[in-house]
């Protein structure tokens, strides 16, 4: 039995321990070369307890004093929220491919070699380029144990690669960033990792004046976040429970273009948060959210699910949308991997179909605007003007505004035929929509 759980016996009605041991090895290159290597060995626990129907919560990294963790959790339970939560003990089907225990973990030198190769590949294309790279090996060992009999553990490893390239020329500065998430060294392909950045730098060679008005826009897979972030919030079981989501009480309704399909897939090994179970020990699953334009589901953690009178979808994660889980936050309803179904047009075809419009690869101020209502309003970070089906150059100082619910219902031009990973969280094709408000200065 987990020693912390042992200590809660006879003191609480139910208890649940999340124990994370994390090893991280990041190597960081700035434009001048290798700048720092770090090793991180961190370990923390989170303890949830139920005492007479009230919830208590405490976290700690001071593992030499387990009694303090139990005391703190019990103390908070005296005033905690009243709930009839039951910690799970459901059979867990193991995912394969999260960690290779036979393989020697990559050394700092191997990670340095990857970073150097990425820098070299990008610099080979042109002058005036400043390239920063980070390559980070991470191994998590997670153990979840509760008083209802669950005691499960899993090791998950990943390599995160972040790239930022900046080109300064004649009074203009253009930065492109990209990030990749792979499971092992064998999945690293320098050509693939640098492809998107090279393409954007090529497209952005000339700055042109931006079109204005109500225009068609092609969002590249990474650009789709502007459009999908409000939607992810609206599909969150918590927003629905709080009636903040415009999708509340609309399950089964055809609210979107019939070509739109959305699934949350916690078992997609390529996804950054993939695991056999979520951070509450609930088995992960595939949850259909939008099926041929019909609203088909929401995603839930245990507590929200219990309040809503439904079952957890295995989406209880201790961390936000972007970035790795931490032991500190209490679990909340969070997307695992959002998979948007591909369409039948290539990105090039989507561009060719537009007489005057924009291609948007990234925006500034993601998360600004009234997300609950589905509104987005962003300045573009990397966007390109399309004229007569061709990309003619990069545009600056352009505001985009629209409402994701309206655009994805009435204005969908098409979906690209190739889905790409974005931040290890989103697997998505290009999305083209009409009538986005574009304001150029």
């Amino acid at each position, binding site marked *: 039995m987990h020693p912390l759980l042992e200590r809660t016996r006879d003191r609480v009605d139910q208890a649940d321990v999340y124990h994370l041991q994390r090893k991280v090895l990041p190597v960081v290159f*700035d434009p*001048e070369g290798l700048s720092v290597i770090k090793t991180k060995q961190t370990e923390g626990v989170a303890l949830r307890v139920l005492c007479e129907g009230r919830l208590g919560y405490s976290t700690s990294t001071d593992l030499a004093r387990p009694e303090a963790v139990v005391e703190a959790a019990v103390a908070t339970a005296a005033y905690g929220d009243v709930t009839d939560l039951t910690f799970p003990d459901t059979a867990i089907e193991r995912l394969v491919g999260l960690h290779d225990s036979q393989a020697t973990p990559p050394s700092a030198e191997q990670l340095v070699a990857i970073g150097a190769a990425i820098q070299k590949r990008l610099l080979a294309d042109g002058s005036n380029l400043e390239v920063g790279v980070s390559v980070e090996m991470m191994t998590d060992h997670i153990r979840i144990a509760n008083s209802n009999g669950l005691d499960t553990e899993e090791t998950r490893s990943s390599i995160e690669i972040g790239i930022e390239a900046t080109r300064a020329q004649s009074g203009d500065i253009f930065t492109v960033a990209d990030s990749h998430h792979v499971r092992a060294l064998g999945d690293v392909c320098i050509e693939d990792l640098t492809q998107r950045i090279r393409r954007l730098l090529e497209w952005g060679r000339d700055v042109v004046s931006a079109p204005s008005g109500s225009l068609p826009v092609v969002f590249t897979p990474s650009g789709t976040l502007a459009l999908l972030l409000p939607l992810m919030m609206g599909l969150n079981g918590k927003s629905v429970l709080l009636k903040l989501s415009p999708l509340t009480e609309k399950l089964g309704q055809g609210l979107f273009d019939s070509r739109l399909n959305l699934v949350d897939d916690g078992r997609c090994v390529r996804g950054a948060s993939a695991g056999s179970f979520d951070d509450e020990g609930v088995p992960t699953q595939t949850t259909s959210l939008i099926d041929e334009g019909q609203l088909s589901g929401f995603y839930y953690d245990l507590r929200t699910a219990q309040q809503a009178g439904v079952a957890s979808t295995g989406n209880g994660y201790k961390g936000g949308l972007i970035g790795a889980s931490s032991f500190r936050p209490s679990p909340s309803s969070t997307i695992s991997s959002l998979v948007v179904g591909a369409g039948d047009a290539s990105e090039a075809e989507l561009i060719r179909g537009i007489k005057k419009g924009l291609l948007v690869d990234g925006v500034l101020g993601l998360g600004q605007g009234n997300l609950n209502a589905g509104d987005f309003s962003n300045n573009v*970070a990397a966007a390109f003007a399309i004229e007569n089906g061709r990309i003619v150059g990069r545009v600056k100082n352009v505001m985009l505004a629209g409402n994701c619910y309206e655009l994805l219902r009435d204005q969908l031009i098409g979906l690209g035929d190739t889905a790409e990973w974005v931040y290890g969280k989103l697997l998505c094709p290009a999305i083209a929509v009409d009538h986005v408000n574009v*304001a150029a200065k």
Partner: protein
Amino acid sequence: MRQTIKQAIAGSTADYTEIRIERRWLNRVLFQREKLETLESATELGGVVRCLKNGGWGISVFNDTSKIAEHIREATQMAAVVGETASQPVILADVPTVQDEVRVELEHDFRNVPLREKVDLTLSYNTLIMKESDKIVSTQVQYVDRFSEITYANSEGTYLVQELPDITMMLGAAASDGKGDIQQGMEYVGKAGGFEWVQGMEDQARMAAQRAVAMLNAKPVPGGQHTVLLDPRLAGVFIHEAFGHFCEADFLFKNPRLAEIMALGNEFGPPELQVIDAGFFAGERGNVPYDDEGVKRAKTTLVKNGHLHSLLHSRETAAKMGAQPTGNARAVSYEHEPIVRMRNTYIENGPISFDDMIKDVERGIYALDAYGGQTEFEQFSFSAAYAYEIVNGEIGDLVRNVVLSGNLFETMRSIDAIGNDRVISGGVGGCGKGGQFPLPVTVGAPHIRIRNVTIGGK
């Protein structure tokens, strides 16, 4: 602890070694709608070692503080790998060594306040918001207190212990018209102070609720170019996000073109414009008696009479640029190394009253507070929390969807009036940079007026 740390440093084979050990206590109460969503109590113990070998950095982060010597060895090894390839070896600017202990005294120390009282206070604000109108559909009322004790030592002989208190209260309301439109209202306070700062916020709770409801009837702002009055909070966020980050010297190394623009003496705004980053402002969240390299706090003038006067430095950036360290090397926690960060950053008062500033605006926008902002080089984008039309010199109707964007340098040059009513404001979150979030800072400014700001809208 002192003996263990000193011995570990003495055994190091690195050219420079520093250790930072942090203990932290945190309590958090969060109400959402009628539910107590989170009630937690956390403790942290952890450390970080940073070593320089042959001009390269190696860093080791850990929770198990019983093996410091081992972590120094590990960090030294990593530093040697970096040092081998480093084209420009790292040099640290000289600073005086310090031995000091900085303890804080709080008027109403939150560590002595029973958890029950913290829950009850938060609940009382939550209830006020819920009761204000039947249009209120949700709340986000959060109390957080945090107390850190940081021990810092380096191989040059500096040894410091300092305490940093932090307390915040957020009062958030969401209102719905029942037809799918949802609007927010928010008030908050954040201080490096005692429990007294989060008491007596009843009026602010009601204001947050009333604003969320009023926003339901606000008309969308017409997109285009507007004359804009920024309130002290939004102006403060603007100067921090859009300009302050450019003054961080480590940022300039990565961007040679920006380094040219950010040359000392260059003109950035009208002669009335003064911008300061201060290491101490009584009771404010950005206070750091010593930074995380053991450098004593100072007041740094970033813009003097409209011209760039100084940058913000760590020991490393100061050595590179031949400047003095300014006490701005800060780490968000023991999990990170110090990088160049702001503290209390503000625009100093100018000569003009708010009434004089607004009276000759025929048509414009009065934008208040920020819901967030982002910058990428000179492009910035900020959402005002709420805003009003200005018509013939007077505040008019509430408007919504006010997102300001533009080119930083053009926008700063378009500041044409600086008020005399400066307010320093600590938010409830903090500043983020290089994966380090949230670092407690404050922003401040008087009202300012800017011509020709692009506002996105429908």
